[in-house]
C-alpha cells in the first residue's frame, strides 16, 4: 500500500530506471509492484461489495459535500482502497499530492505531529478549480490510516483541529476496531462499516487477477485461497502472488496454497485428535513432538484444534473444559512459554476429557 | 576538680598570669583548613606534667551531656577493657616506631571508637591531628578566577586530603604556648572521609600507598558501621589493600546494656547533684532499662535520649501501646513470661524519643523466620489459632498456633531488599523441613513470590508483598516443626551462579562467533561436542571455554557448590539486578557491553581479516 500511496514517486523513478537499463531488468522492474497495489481499484465503481459507502462517495463526486468519514471493519475489506480511489477521482493525479495528506500507523503520529503537520496542512486554503478546468471540491482530505493505534491524547488533540478546519479539510479515519477511537472523534464523523467480503466476490476478483497474470490454477486452489483468507482480500491476493512466485510456471495447487499460508494440514490435526481420543500417552508424546518438529506455529495448531473440537461429538462439559485449557494455553504461548510443553499439556487434557466419556 | 572562672574554648596565645593552667582546645587541622570545633575539652596540667581532662562546670545548662560527660580516662570508657588494651598496644608500638602504620577501627555508631582514641592518646601523650572535610563547596567555574585572585584555595577535597597527609607527616606542629608533653608524637585521625573516596576508591588506595611509603606517624581510620558504612568499608578497604599495606583492623562491639546502665546512672546522679535544673526528672530503673535496650548498643544515642528524657515531664518519655497498660504491669508481665515469650503487643512498645529501630543482622532475621516460633497453645484463648477463629473440619490441617514473629517487621528491620531476603531464605530453608509435602508447598510460595516481582515496572510496589508471601508461606508450610537447634546459614549462591552463567554465555558467544549459531544452539550443541573432538586449531581462549562449558564431570555423588557461611554480624547486600531473565531492565546491555569490550583484544585479530565461511 505504501507503494501505492507513494505511487507518484515510483512512477517518477521508474522511467529513470527504464532509461538506464534495458532488457530483462526493465521487465523485472515492471513486475516489482505487489499485486495488491497493482490491482487496487482505481475508481470508486471498482470497489467491491461495499454499497453504502460507494453511494455516499459517488454523491460527493457529483458535487455534494463530503462529511468526515470513519471507515472501520476487518482488514483487507477495502477501506483504504475506497478512500484512495475516491480521492484520485476527485482530484486527479496532479492535484492529488497537494490535496491529500496520508498518515499511516508506520509514521510518527504523536501529539506533536498532530499539532504541527496536520494543523499546518489543514490550514492551507485551496481553490475550487482544477488546473485542467474541471471543478473540484474546495477542500482537502487528510487520511489517517490505522487510526486505532493512535494514542488517546493524540486523538484528543485531533478533534479540535477537525472542528476548526472543517471548512477546508475533511478527515477520513480508517481503523479496525471502532472501540479504540475516542467518543468525541466518532461523533464528529460518519461511520461506515466495511463488511467482510463474500466468498463469491473474492473468487471473482481472484479469477480476474489470475487471468490477467496468466496463471495456471485449479478450482480447488482458488477455493482454498478464499477459505483460508477469511474474508481478507489483501491476504488472498498476497498469497496468490507468493504462490505464483514459488511455482513459476507450474500449476498452483491447493497444496501449495496451504503450504504458503502456513496452515497445518487437516490430516495432521485429525491424526492428533485421533490419538488424543483413542491412543496412549506415549503415542501422544511422539505425535506432538512430530508436529513441533515440522515447524508449525503452536498458535496455529491451537486455533485449528479449537475449530475441530467445536465440531466434535462430545458433551458440552467436555468441550468447555477443553476450551478453558485452550484459553490458558493461548495465554501462556503469548507470554513466551515453550510450545512443546504447552501442546503436550493441552493434548493430555483432551485425552483426559475424552477418556471420561 | 578545680573550678575555672573562664569557660572559654579559645586558644590562649599568651600565658594567663593568674593561673597555671590554661584552657586549650584540642588541635584540629592547623594548616588552613576550616576546622570545626568538636568537643572542646579543658585540660588540666598535673604535677607530673601529664595532661588529663576535667569536667567543666562552667558550661551552660544546654551543653549536650554527650560532650559534658565524655570519658576522660580509660576506666570511664564504655568499651571492654580488652578492646582498649588492644588499641593501646597498637598505639604504643606504632608511635614508637619510625614507620607509622594504619589502623582501622570499625563498629556500630556510638560504640566508643573516637572516645577510645582520644582517651588513649592523652594517656600516651600523643597529639591527635584530625581531618574534617572542608565545608566550603567548590566554587563555580565563573567565580574560579575570583577565588584564585583572593588567594583562597579551590582545589578538590582529594587534593586537600593528600596535602594534609603529606604535611602532617613532614612538618611538626607549631608549638603552642602552654602545651607540654610529647609534641613529637603524633597520630592522624580520619573519621570523615572525603566523598570522592566513596565514588573512586582507587584514588584513595593510591594515596594510602604513598602515605605508607613516606609515613612517620600512625594513621587511624574510624569507620562507622552503619549498613552503608559496612559496604563502604569493603570498598574503601578491600581485603587486598588491607593485606598489602599491613593494616590492622579492630572492630568494636556495641556497648552492652549493663555498662550502659552504669554510665547512664552515673550521669543522672551527677546531674542531680548539681541541681541546676529544678525540674530534673529522675527516671526509674525500668525506664533506664528501656532506654538502654532502645538504643541498641549506641551509647551516644542513649545519653542523648537520657538528656531529653530527664528534661521533660514525667511520663512522656515512653510511649505505650495499648495506653492502658502501665509500665509496672508491663514489667510484671514480662517478668512472668520470661524474656523469650514476649507477646507481640509488647514488642511494639518502643521509645517515643530516641528509640532506634532494632536492626537485625541478617543471620538473626533469617533465624527468626526459619525457626519460626509459635505459641504453645497453653492459654485457652490461644487455641483458636492465629486469627481467633476455629477452622472448619476440612481445613484443620491448616491450623497453626499463634505466630510469635511478625514476618514483615523482620524483613523490614533486616534492612535488605525483599528479593535478597527471599533468596537467603530459599538457600537455607531446606535444612529446616523434614517432609517433602511441606517442601512442595513452601517452594510453591517461593515461586509465587518470584512471579510477583517478575514485572519490573511494578516491582517497587509489589516487592514487599512478594517477601511477605515468601516468608509467611515458608512459615505456614512448615507444619511439623522440629526443633532443629543451631544450623549454619549460607549466603545465596544464586547470584554467583547467575553471574557465571551470563559470563560464560557471553564469552562463548564472542569467541565462537564465526559459527553463526544461535546462542542456545551454540551452548547446548556445539560446545559439548567440541569438547569431545580434538581441536588442534583452536585458540587458547576457545579451548578454555570449551573445557569450562562443554565438559561436565559426571561424578555420581553430587558435589555441593562452595557455600559461603553467613557470618553472624553480616548485614544484607543488594543483589545486582538480573538482566534478561525479566528482560526489561537496562543492565543487560551494560554487561554484554562490558564483556564485548573486555573481549575486544581477542577479537581484534579477527576484525580485519576477510575470512572464508568456515569454522576455522
Amino acid at each position, binding site marked *: 500500500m505504501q507503494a501505492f500511496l507513494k505511487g507518484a514517486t515510483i512512477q517518477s523513478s521508474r522511467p529513470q530506471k527504464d532509461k538506464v537499463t534495458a*532488457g530483462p531488468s526493465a521487465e523485472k522492474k515492471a513486475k516489482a509492484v505487489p499485486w495488491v497495489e497493482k490491482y487496487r481499484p482505481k475508481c470508486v465503481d471498482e470497489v467491491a461489495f461495499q454499497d453504502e459507502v460507494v453511494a455516499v462517495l459517488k454523491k460527493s463526486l457529483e458535487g455534494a459535500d463530503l462529511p468526515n468519514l470513519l471507515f472501520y471493519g476487518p482488514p483487507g475489506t477495502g477501506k483504504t482502497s475506497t478512500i484512495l480511489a475516491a480521492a484520485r477521482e476527485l482530484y486527479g493525479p496532479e492535484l492529488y499530492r497537494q490535496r491529500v495528506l496520508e498518515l499511516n500507523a508506520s509514521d510518527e503520529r504523536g501529539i506533536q505531529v498532530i499539532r504541527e503537520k496536520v494543523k499546518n496542512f489543514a490550514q492551507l486554503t485551496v481553490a475550487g478549480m482544477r488546473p485542467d478546468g474541471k471543478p473540484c471540491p474546495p477542500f482537502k482530505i487528510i487520511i489517517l490510516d490505522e487510526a486505532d493505534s493512535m494514542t488517546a491524547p493524540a486523538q484528543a488533540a485531533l478533534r479540535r483541529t477537525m472542528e476548526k478546519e472543517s471548512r477546508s479539510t475533511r478527515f477520513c479515519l480508517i481503523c479496525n476496531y471502532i472501540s479504540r477511537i475516542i467518543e468525541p472523534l466518532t461523533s464528529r464523523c460518519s461511520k461506515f462499516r466495511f463488511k467482510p467480503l463474500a466468498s463469491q466476490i473474492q473468487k471473482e476478483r481472484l479469477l480476474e487477477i489470475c487471468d490477467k497474470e496468466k496463471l495456471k490454477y485449479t478450482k480447488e486452489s482458488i477455493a482454498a485461497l478464499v477459505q483460508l483468507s477469511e474474508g481478507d482480500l489483501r491476504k488472498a491476493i498476497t498469497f496468490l502472488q507468493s504462490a505464483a512466485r514459488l511455482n513459476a510456471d507450474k500449476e498452483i495447487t491447493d497444496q501449495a496454497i496451504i503450504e504458503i499460508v502456513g496452515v497445518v494440514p487437516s490430516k495432521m490435526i485429525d491424526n492428533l485428535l485421533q490419538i488424543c481420543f483413542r491412543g496412549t500417552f506415549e503415542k501422544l508424546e511422539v505425535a506432538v513432538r512430530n508436529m513441533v518438529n515440522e515447524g508449525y506455529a503452536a498458535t496455529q495448531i491451537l486455533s485449528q484444534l479449537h475449530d475441530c473440537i467445536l465440531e466434535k461429538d462430545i458433551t458440552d462439559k467436555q468441550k468447555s473444559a477443553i476450551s478453558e485449557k485452550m484459553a490458558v494455553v493461548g495465554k501462556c504461548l503469548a507470554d513466551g512459554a515453550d510450545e512443546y*510443553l504447552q501442546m503436550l499439556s493441552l493434548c*493430555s487434557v483432551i485425552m483426559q476429557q475424552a477418556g471420561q466419556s | 576538680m578545680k573550678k575555672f572562672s573562664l569557660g572559654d574554648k579559645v586558644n590562649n596565645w599568651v600565658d594567663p598570669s593568674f593561673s597555671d593552667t590554661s584552657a586549650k582546645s584540642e588541635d584540629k587541622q592547623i594548616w588552613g583548613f576550616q576546622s570545626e570545633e568538636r568537643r572542646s575539652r579543658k585540660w588540666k596540667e598535673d604535677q607530673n606534667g601529664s595532661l588529663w581532662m576535667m569536667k567543666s562546670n562552667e558550661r551552660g545548662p544546654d551543653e549536650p551531656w554527650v560532650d559534658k560527660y565524655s570519658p576522660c580516662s580509660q576506666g570511664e570508657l564504655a568499651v571492654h577493657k580488652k578492646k582498649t588494651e588492644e588499641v593501646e598496644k597498637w598505639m604504643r608500638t606504632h608511635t614508637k616506631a619510625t614507620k607509622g602504620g594504619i589502623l582501622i577501627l570499625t563498629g556500630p555508631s556510638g560504640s566508643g571508637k573516637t572516645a577510645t582514641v582520644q582517651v588513649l592518646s592523652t594517656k600516651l601523650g600523643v597529639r591527635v591531628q584530625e581531618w574534617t572535610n572542608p565545608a566550603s563547596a567548590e566554587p563555580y567555574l565563573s567565580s574560579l578566577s575570583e577565588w584564585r585572585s583572593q588567594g583562597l584555595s579551590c582545589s578538590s577535597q582529594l587534593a586537600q586530603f593528600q596535602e594534609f597527609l603529606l604535611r602532617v607527616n613532614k612538618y611538626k606542629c607549631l608549638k603552642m604556648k602552654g602545651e607540654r608533653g610529647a609534641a613529637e608524637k603524633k597520630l592522624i585521625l580520619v573519621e570523615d572521609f572525603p566523598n570522592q573516596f566513596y565514588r573512586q576508591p582507587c584514588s584513595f588506595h593510591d594515596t594510602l600507598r604513598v602515605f605508607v611509603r613516606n609515613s612517620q606517624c600512625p594513621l587511624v581510620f574510624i569507620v562507622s558501621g552503619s549498613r552503608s558504612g559496612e559496604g563502604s568499608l569493603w570498598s574503601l578497604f578491600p581485603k587486598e589493600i588491607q593485606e598489602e599495606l599491613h593494616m590492622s583492623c579492630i572492630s568494636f562491639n556495641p556497648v552492652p546494656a549493663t555498662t550502659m546502665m552504669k554510665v547512664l546512672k552515673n550521669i543522672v546522679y551527677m546531674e542531680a547533684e548539681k541541681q541546676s535544673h529544678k525540674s530534673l526528672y529522675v527516671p526509674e530503673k525500668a525506664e533506664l532499662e528501656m532506654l538502654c535496650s532502645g538504643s541498641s548498643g549506641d551509647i551516644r544515642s542513649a545519653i542523648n535520649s537520657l538528656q531529653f528524657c530527664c528534661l521533660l515531664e514525667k511520663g512522656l518519655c515512653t510511649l505505650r501501646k495499648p495506653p492502658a497498660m502501665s509500665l509496672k504491669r508491663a514489667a510484671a508481665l514480662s517478668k512472668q513470661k520470661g524474656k523469650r515469650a514476649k507477646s507481640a503487643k509488647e514488642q511494639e512498645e518502643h521509645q517515643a524519643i530516641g528509640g532506634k529501630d532494632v536492626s537485625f543482622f541478617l543471620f538473626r532475621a533469617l533465624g527468626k523466620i526459619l525457626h519460626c516460633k509459635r505459641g504453645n497453645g497453653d492459654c485457652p484463648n490461644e487455641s483458636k489459632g492465629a486469627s481467633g477463629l476455629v477452622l472448619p473440619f476440612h481445613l484443620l490441617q491448616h491450623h497453626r498456633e499463634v505466630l510469635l514473629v511478625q514476618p514483615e517487621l523482620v524483613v523490614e528491620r533486616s534492612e535488605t531488599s525483599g528479593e535478597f531476603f527471599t533468596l537467603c531464605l530459599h538457600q537455607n530453608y531446606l535444612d529446616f523441613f523434614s517432609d517433602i509435602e511441606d517442601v*512442595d508447598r513452601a517452594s510453591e510460595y517461593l515461586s509465587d513470590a*518470584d512471579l510477583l516481582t517478575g514485572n519490573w515496572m511494578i516491582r517497587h510496589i509489589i516487592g514487599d508483598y512478594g517477601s511477605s508471601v515468601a516468608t509467611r508461606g515458608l512459615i505456614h508450610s512448615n507444619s511439623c516443626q522440629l526443633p532443629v537447634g543451631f544450623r549454619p546459614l549460607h549466603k545465596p549462591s544464586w547470584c554467583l551462579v547467575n553471574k557465571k552463567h551470563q559470563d560464560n554465555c557471553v564469552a562463548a558467544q564472542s569467541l565462537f562467533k564465526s559459527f553463526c549459531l*544461535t546462542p542456545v544452539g551454540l551452548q547446548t550443541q556445539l560446545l559439548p561436542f567440541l569438547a569431545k573432538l580434538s581441536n588442534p586449531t583452536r585458540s587458547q581462549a576457545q579451548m578454555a571455554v570449551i573445557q569450562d562449558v562443554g565438559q561436565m564431570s559426571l561424578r555420581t555423588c553430587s558435589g555441593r557448590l562452595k557455600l559461603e557461611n553467613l557470618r553472624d554480624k553480616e548485614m544484607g547486600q543488594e543483589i545486582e539486578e538480573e538482566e*534478561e531473565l525479566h528482560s526489561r531492565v537496562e543492565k543487560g546491555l551494560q554487561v554484554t557491553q562490558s564483556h564485548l569490550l573486555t573481549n575486544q583484544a581477542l577479537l581484534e585479530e579477527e576484525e580485519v581479516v576477510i575470512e572464508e565461511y568456515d569454522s576455522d
Partner: protein
Amino acid sequence: MSLWLDKYRPTSLGKLDYHKEQATQLKNLVQCGDFPHLLVYGPSGAGKKTRIMCLLKELYGPGVEKLRIEHQTIVAPSKKKIEINIIASNYHLEVNPSDAGNQDRVVIQELIKTVAQSQQIQSSTQREFKVVLLTEVDRLTKDAQHALRRTMEKYMTTCRLILCSTSTSKVIGPIQSRCLAVRVPLPSTEEVCSVLTSVCKKEGLLLPPELAKQISEKSGRNLRRALLMCEACRVQQYPFSADQDVPEPDWEVYLRETANAIVSQQSPQRLLEVRARLYELLTHCIPPDIIIKGLVEELLNNCDGQLKTEVAHLAAYYEHRLQLGSKAIYHLEAFIAKFMAMYKKFMEDGLDAMMF
C-alpha cells in the same frame, strides 16, 4: 581442520539433500525477479541458515561466501553506545539484534537505515537491493518488531529482509503478512541417515547402517547434532562398529542422572543435592528452559499412566512461570518438589494397593 558440519554444508540450492521441492521453489523465487521479504522458520538444526546462504548465493553469486566479522557501534537516541557484531559480505549483512538486549529496536532501525541508504551501483547483473539477514527474530521485543515493520515498508526498494526464527508464534501479525513465510521442517530419520552416510563416504569412512540409524534417532532428527555426534563417534572409535555407543553431550547425561536421583529418593536432602546439580548445569550455560524440558522427558519415562498427565501439566505450568519470573531456580525447584511429592504419594498409594 573444520568440522564436518561446515565442510560438507551444501553451498547451492541444487545441492541440498532434502526438501528438494522447496529448493526448486526458492530457485523460482530468485528468478522471478520480484524478491519479497522472507520469513524462514523451523526447528533448530533443520537447515534454515544453510538454505538462506544457498539462496543468497543464487541471488548474488559466489561473492556472498566471502564473509567478514565487523563491529559496529550504534548510538541510541539516549546517547548510549551499543556494540553489535555483524557478519557481512559485499552483498548482505547478518546480525542478531537480540544481542543488544533491550536496545534491539535501535539496532534494527539504524542498521537497516544505513544499509538501505547506501545505494547499490546500478548494473545489469546486480540486484538493486541488499539483503539484511536477521536471526532469532522471535526473541525480539515487541517494540523492535513494530519498528521492524515500519522499516520494512519504508526501505522496501533498496533493502530486502530475510528473517530467521524458530517459530512464528512470537512474530507479530503485521510482519508475517509482509513476508513470504518459508517453513523448513526437520528432515526425516531416513533423510538424516542418508546425509550421514554420504558425509562419511566423502570422508572415506564406512558407516554401518545400524549405527547411522541409531545416530539419527538419538539426535532427534536434528541434522547438526547428528553430524556432530557422528564426528565424535569417529574420534571415539574407528572403524565403526554397529553397536557402538553414541556419544551424547555431557549435560544430557548429567541431566538424566539428575532425573534418576529425583526418582530414587524424595526428601528435602535429595532436593538440596538436586539443587546443586541444577546450579552446576546453569554454570555450564545450559538455559533453564532447556533444563526443565530435559528433566520432563526423563521423568516421563519413569512414570506411567495418570502420573504422566500430571507431570505434563506441572511442566507446562512451571515453565511458563519461568518465563514470567526473574529467578529460574525458584520455579525449577518448585517443579521438582511438586514432582517429588506427587511421586511419593503415588508410590505409597501403589504400595497400599498392593497390600490388599
